[in-house]
Structure formats: C-alpha cells, structure tokens
C-alpha cells in the first residue's frame, strides 16, 4: 500500500516563487516545499548486484503498467467524483460558494461536500480576495491538506487581485502562494460557473496519467 500511495502522487507542481510584498515590511512568507520525486537509479557494476537491481526495476515497471491499466482509472474515477472542498469563506465569492450548495444548484449532486478540517479535504476553493495577512494561513491550510490535492482560484480576486489588485494589502492572485489548477472568471462567478470549474477539475483528474 505504501508503494501504491507513493506512486500516485500528483505531478510535481511548479514550486511557487517565494515572494515578499514590498508593501509589507517584515513579512517572511513560508515556502511551499515540493515533495522529492522518487526515482530508481540502477548502478550495475557487477553481475551480483545487477540481478537484484534488474529484478527490482522489472517489478517496478510491471507495477507501473498494472497501475496504469487497472488501478489508476479506478482511483481517478473515485477522486474526481468525490471532491471535498475546504469549508471557508474569504470574501464575496464565498456567498456564491454557499449558494452553490443551496437548494437550487446543490453541488452535492456531484459528490462535492465541504469539510471544515483541511485534513479531510482534497480541494481548496479560494473564494475571494487573498490579503497578505491571511496568506500565511492559506499556505498553512494548503500544506495541511493531504495529497493529492487541488486548488481552484474562484473569481477575479483570487485569480489576479480583481478590482483590488492595486491595493497595498492584497495578494495579486493566489497563484503567487499555492499552485492553482483551475481558474474561474467572474466577480463573483455565478454558482453555475463554480460548478463548471469543479467539472473542469474533474476532467483534469480524469485525464491524469502521472
């Protein structure tokens, strides 16, 4: 099981540049550490060492193939059909986020159930303006979520700062802090747009090969 879970890690996302706002003195932002990519290195010097090394590589290859054909589609199906977003509200988009779980749109139809604890989430919907003051908390929450995990930047503020991009306290886009998978346009996006973003993410997960 340990082997399995190690190989279905998501693709190593580009490490976000560690930034520091010029407008905010003394704010040391945390770094998002990307997990080390495991790899097998074969150093066949002597036959005695070659045999176990080759055997290991072959086993790994077979496991990889088996995973590609059988296990990955199942887990991809499970992963895309049960996305638990983090239950939190940043700003205006949070109201539309809540409306999407209301009676009219009912995001639970797609298996989307918000959980309050980041440990139980696999999707962080950044629904609103991210300020430098909350940036640390956001990164902490992201790091508390277990792999595999995804981020949706909902609305213009999370995408690029929106109407507040010039403000001294606003992060111009949450992708400066955490890797973002899906961007949803709108200020705020309608609940339909949010659901569409989630469906786009499901498509991404469905096509996941790594």
């Amino acid at each position: 099981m340990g082997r399995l879970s190690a190989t279905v890690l998501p693709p190593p996302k580009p490490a976000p540049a560690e930034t520091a706002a010029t407008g905010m003195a003394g704010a040391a932002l945390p770094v998002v550490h990307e997990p080390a990519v495991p790899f097998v290195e074969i150093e066949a010097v002597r036959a005695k060492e070659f045999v176990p090394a080759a055997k290991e590589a072959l086993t790994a290859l077979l496991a990889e193939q088996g995973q590609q054909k059988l296990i990955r589609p199942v887990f991809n199906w499970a992963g895309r059909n049960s996305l638990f977003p983090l239950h939190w509200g940043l700003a205006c988009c949070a109201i539309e986020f809540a409306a999407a779980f209301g009676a009219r749109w009912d995001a639970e139809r797609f298996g989307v159930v918000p959980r309050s604890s980041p440990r139980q989430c696999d999707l962080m919907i950044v629904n609103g303006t991210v300020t430098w003051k909350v940036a640390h908390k956001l990164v902490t929450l992201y790091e508390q979520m277990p792999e595999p995990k995804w981020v949706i930047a909902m609305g213009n503020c999370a995408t690029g700062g929106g109407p507040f991009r010039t403000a001294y306290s606003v992060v111009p886009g949450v992708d400066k802090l955490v890797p973002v998978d899906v961007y949803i346009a709108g200020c705020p996006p309608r609940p339909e747009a949010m659901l569409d973003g989630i469906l786009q993410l499901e498509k991404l997960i469905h096509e996941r090969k790594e």
Partner: protein
Amino acid sequence: MSEMWINMGPQHPMTHGLWNLRVQIDGELVRAVDPEMGYLHRGIEKISEDRHYNEVITLMDRCCYVAGMAWEHLYILGAEAALQVRPPERADYLRVLCDEFQRLGSHLMWYAAFVQDLGLMSPFLYGMRDRDLVLDLFQSFTGARMTYEYMRVGGVRNDLPPGFADRSRKVLDWLDDRFREYDALCLGSTIFRKRCDGLGVLKGPEAIAHGVTGPMLRAAGVKRDLRKDRPYSAYDRVDFDVALADSADVTGRYLVRMEEMRQSVRILRQVLDWLDHHPGPVVADRLPRWLGAPYAPVGAEGYLLKRNYPKGLGLSAIEEPHGEALSYVVNDGGEHPYRVKFRSPVFANLSAASTYLVGYHVADIPPIMGSVDVCVGEVDR
C-alpha cells in the same frame, strides 16, 4: 485542563467570513475574547481616492457583499451631498426598493447562517433558496446577483424592466408564507428557545456606549432606526413600523430581524405601487459632465477650475441591514474623492464582542455571533 486560548478562525465554520476570534476558555466557559480583524482588508478607502466618483460604486458592492445595494446607497448619498447633486424622485423610490430588497436578501442570508450555527440543517437551505428568489429580481434589472453597480451619482443606472412589479409581488407573497414557516421551525422548537433565550444579553445603555446599532440595538428595546429618525431617499413617504424587542438576547435579535423582513415586504408593496403610477426620469439631468465618464476628459482639471465647481463635504447615514452605516466624502473639487471614510455597523458591533460573549459557553459563541450577523467585508473594508 485549566484556562487556555483557542483561535476560532480565520478558517472556522463559526466565522462566516475571514476573521479570528481568540477566546480564552476555562473548560467550556468563555473568559475573554479578542476579535482579530483585517484578514479581508482590501484598502477600499485608499483605492477610492484613485477613482472617479461613479467608479467607487464597484468597490461598494464588494465592500459588503451581502448588502451591496445598501452600501451603494450609502456611498451615493455621501457623494451626492459632497457634490451637491439631487436625484429625481423616481430614483429615490427605486433606491428604497433596492434597499429593502437588499434587506430581505441580507436577512435571509443571515437566517441561513444563523440557523446553521445552531445545528439546524434544513432551514439553511430554505434561507438560501428564498434568497435566490430575491437575487433573481435584482438580476432582472441590474444584471447581477450580488455586485450590482446599479446606483449612480444623481440617480440610478436604468429603470425597471416590464413585468417586474408582478414578479416582485409574487415573490413577496411567497416570502410572507415562508416567514411563518421559519418561525415554526425556530420559535416552535423547544431546543431553539432553550438555546437562545437569555443568550448574549446586551442591554440598551451598554449597547449605546459601545456603539452597537441596528437589530442588535433594537432587540435591546432602543428605538433607533435611521429610516424613521433621519429619513433619507423616500423613507419619509412610506409607512412602516420599527421592529423592536426588549429581551436583548439572541431570540430578541431573531424576532427583530424577522419583523424587519415583514416590514420590508410592507414597504416594498407601497414602493411598487408608487412606481407603477409615477413614471419619470431616473437620473438627474444636471450633472457634472465628467461624472458619467469612465475617464477624466482631457483638461478636466482646468475645466473644473474654470467652472469653479463647488468643493464640499458630504455625510450620509443609512440604516443598513446590519445597522447604522455612515459615509463621509470629502470633495476637494477634483474628479476623484479626496477622502472617503465609512462607518461599518458590524465593525462597532464586533468591537463590543466582549460585552456579549464573556460568561457564556463555547457552544454559545456560534449562535451569538450568528445573531450579530457578521459581514467581514464591511468591517475590514
């Protein structure tokens, strides 16, 4: 386990927004609280200084996202006072219409959030469902669900579409029925009364000293409603009662908000009748020429100087769904406001948090804060 501090927020189901309530607890009892704000500080007052008067409206919608219309109204009144512009009468009525629909929307949102804090699951969905009906009406004449950008200095952007009055009346009738259902679900439940009676008590004098306004103050029996005391727009021409309760607790705030929704329905019926019979312009015809323009016309500064456009200070106060909101607009004759300062009702209501939270249980914090109706956008601005 003796006393310890816990952080409720910024990511916590109780907060309904982005703020942090630091609570010192002794077992399950609250000993001290310290709200920590600013997680959503977006510098709206600063950005406003770089924008034209009409462009600030964009920010106002996002300032308080559950009561965007009310904040537009607030800012517009301040800006009109500073620029010495008068809107036509129909615009006044349209603004009252927007305000009251917004009050319905905001209070329905409050209802949804508040009952969720008590652990009631279904009414949350009911509140959101009925709020969507109000938002549909907004959408039919502003094109947006939450961020409307509808009001303008000197009036409103456009008139109502045909058939709006009938649709609104249908929604109002539906809501009238639903209020009975809400009351049955909440007041009819013994557990609700046991939870909420005598909870989060904030008596009148203390509330006034701490600057608490709105439903929280009226639940303490203080009859202060700026719509009556200092009528703005068309509020002096409509008939309504001020919702009051005297228990000063969570139940009282619930009763006040429910009654306010009923009064809103009453006001809206009158306003819709008036609008049916009084067509007319919705924007004042004599406006500074640059007000409607997205960019300052070439040589605007010289133009203004030549015209010697009046400088001015504007103070406006409205009864926002959360309470008394103020705006102070300084017009130094330029095309941008020199300074815009807002007073958020929730800001003051939250600053008094220790008066109504200390001494209760940890489990009481969510319903009490739910009854305060926190909208962090307008607190942090």
